[in-house]
């Protein structure tokens, strides 16, 4: 490891440093605000350090990691999202009795894991990144440990994630066994030398897909998602839905681009089936659901299906579309869970649809933000979600994936049904005007932090929806350096 290696890993180093500092601080004395500030500052600093890497081109660090435009963009995206989530978390946890401070350490660790994931070029780094992420998530999900549901969600996630990790690892072992290398590039050249893919390799790939599919919560590995989303604290749910999935998707894209997996009809077929099944099952499951967090979980399953459509396009445009969509999806999901977090109280999260009744008249601004988020999920114009969906459709049409594209359109319609149901609930007349606000009022400063975050998200959402050019330029600029 040379000095330049360290320079290129600066974001990760900053985060790691922040973890250490945090632990020391906790050892000295617990203070929620200080922890929060340390976390936020470290995220910001890490993000700022990316500025140096903007024209990095492609810089490999040993066989394990690579810093390139793609990686930089994804790290940036992850860092920003994590920052936003930490801001929402502050208000969320401020109301709760549990010790809050470790939460931030876990959040930082999970973020580090994800960042490692998206820049890994080797099974070892992939595995390490993934497990740092996973183990942190086990604790995060069950963080509110006095809630039954949190524990249930935690144990479910733990067992299932470990179970799927076993698949992933075994798959890796098989791939390693048949190719003799664990580097992506090496695997690619090894595959290229085969005239016919050996069974061992195919089985290995298949098992890896199970592991990856689980993390992405695509059908048929999706079943954990609603339970975990429901049980986890709202900010953690936001983290799982965005950062964790985004990171895994990032590494999936990197791996597939490297080995050019789109050449193999078997793999394409598997992903096509998975994509269609995810879209359908996700949307149908959400159709009459009355728990907002579960709706968002199911909808995220469907959205991963949409993302796979662009992923299957398999060209530069597809990668751009996935990336763009991820940005939109990140903003939207964080915003949506931010609203959920904001409306939650000590006892429970605001997850029942009933909690949102007449929100438009009680808290117009919050409701407007939530409406914007939901409409973005539904892909309605003026929101980033629309442009994202448009991009995916464009990528699909471009490579003539008609089946997938039509399924996407069909599913968008099914999706609309439950999205507008949420909106409809919000503008319903209140049943009785006497329904007093039971929620304990927060301190104004905290309230402002949450509202400010949500406002930023909403503005970003609309800005990207109306003027996607800027983001598009960044994505195209950064990703062009990666794809050969």
């Amino acid at each position, binding site marked *: 490891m040379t000095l330049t290696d360290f320079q290129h890993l600066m974001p990760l180093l900053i985060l790691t440093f922040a973890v250490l500092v945090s632990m020391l601080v906790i050892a000295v004395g617990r203070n929620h605000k200080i922890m929060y500030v340390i976390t936020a500052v470290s995220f910001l600093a890490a993000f700022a350090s990316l500025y140096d890497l903007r024209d990095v081109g492609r810089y490999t660090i040993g066989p394990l990691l690579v810093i390139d435009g793609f990686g930089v963009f994804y790290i940036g995206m992850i860092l920003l999202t994590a920052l936003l989530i930490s801001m929402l978390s502050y208000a969320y946890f401020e109301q709760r009795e549990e010790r809050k401070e470790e939460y931030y350490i876990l959040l930082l660790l999970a973020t580090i894991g994800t960042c490692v994931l998206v820049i890994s070029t080797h*099974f*070892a780094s992939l*595995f*390490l990144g993934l*497990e740092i992420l*996973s*183990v942190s998530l*086990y*604790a995060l999900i*069950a963080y509110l*440990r006095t809630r*039954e*549901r949190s*524990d*249930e*969600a*935690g*144990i*479910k996630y*733990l*067992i299932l994630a*470990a*179970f799927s*990790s*076993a*698949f992933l*690892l*075994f798959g*890796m*072992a*098989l791939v*390693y*066994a048949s190719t*003799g290398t*664990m580097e992506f590039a090496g695997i690619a050249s090894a595959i290229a030398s085969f005239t016919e893919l050996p069974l*061992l390799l195919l089985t290995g790939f298949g098992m890896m897909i199970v592991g990856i599919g689980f993390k992405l919560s695509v059908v048929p590995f999706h079943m954990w998602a*609603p*339970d975990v989303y*429901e*049980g986890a604290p709202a900010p953690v749910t936001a983290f799982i839905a965005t950062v964790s999935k985004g990171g895994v998707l990032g590494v999936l894209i990197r791996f597939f681009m490297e080995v050019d997996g789109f050449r193999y009809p078997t793999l394409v077929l598997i992903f096509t089936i998975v994509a269609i099944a995810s879209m359908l099952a996700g949307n149908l499951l959400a159709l009459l*659901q009355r*728990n907002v967090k*579960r709706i968002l979980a199911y909808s995220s399953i469907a959205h991963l299906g949409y993302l796979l459509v662009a992923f299957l396009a398999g060209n530069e445009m597809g990668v751009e579309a996935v990336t763009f969509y991820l940005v939109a999806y990140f903003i939207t999901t964080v915003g949506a869970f931010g609203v959920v977090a904001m409306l939650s109280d000590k006892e429970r999260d605001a997850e029942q649809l009933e909690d949102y009744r007449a929100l438009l008249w009680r808290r117009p601004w919050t409701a407007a933000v939530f409406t914007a988020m939901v409409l973005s999920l539904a892909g309605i114009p003026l929101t980033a979600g629309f442009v994202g969906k448009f991009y995916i459709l464009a990528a699909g049409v471009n490579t003539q994936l008609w089946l997938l594209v039509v399924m996407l359109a069909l599913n968008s319609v099914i999706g609309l049904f439950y999205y507008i149901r949420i909106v409809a609930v919000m503008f319903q007349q209140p049943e009785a005007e006497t329904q007093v606000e039971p929620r304990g009022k927060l301190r104004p400063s905290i309230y402002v932090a949450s509202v400010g975050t949500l406002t930023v998200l909403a503005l970003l959402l609309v800005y990207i929806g109306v003027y996607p050019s800027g983001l598009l330029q960044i994505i195209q600029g950064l990703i062009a350096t990666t794809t050969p």
Partner: protein
Amino acid sequence: MTAIPMETGLLLAGILFMLGLISVMIRRNIIFMLISVEIMLNAAGLAFIVAGSHWAQPDGQIMFIFILTMAAAEVSVGLALILQIYHQLKTLNSDAANFMKG
């Protein structure tokens, strides 16, 4: 050493993996489920070692060490969670933990 072909080793790993897999599916006790998952992970580790030895590389063993570490971390968190669940449900039956569904 070379007398044992890689396939045999992988087969052993595979059998171990299947054993773990099946017992995860049929066990109700959460601790046993955790143990079964550990078996699966170790099966994967074994497969790495077999593959590594086939290619005469240390990578497989390194991966095994990673897996061990990770499994340990996982178990520690897992046991903590199980304790918590036992506190609340007074049972270790995983089927009892189904408050969330639908």
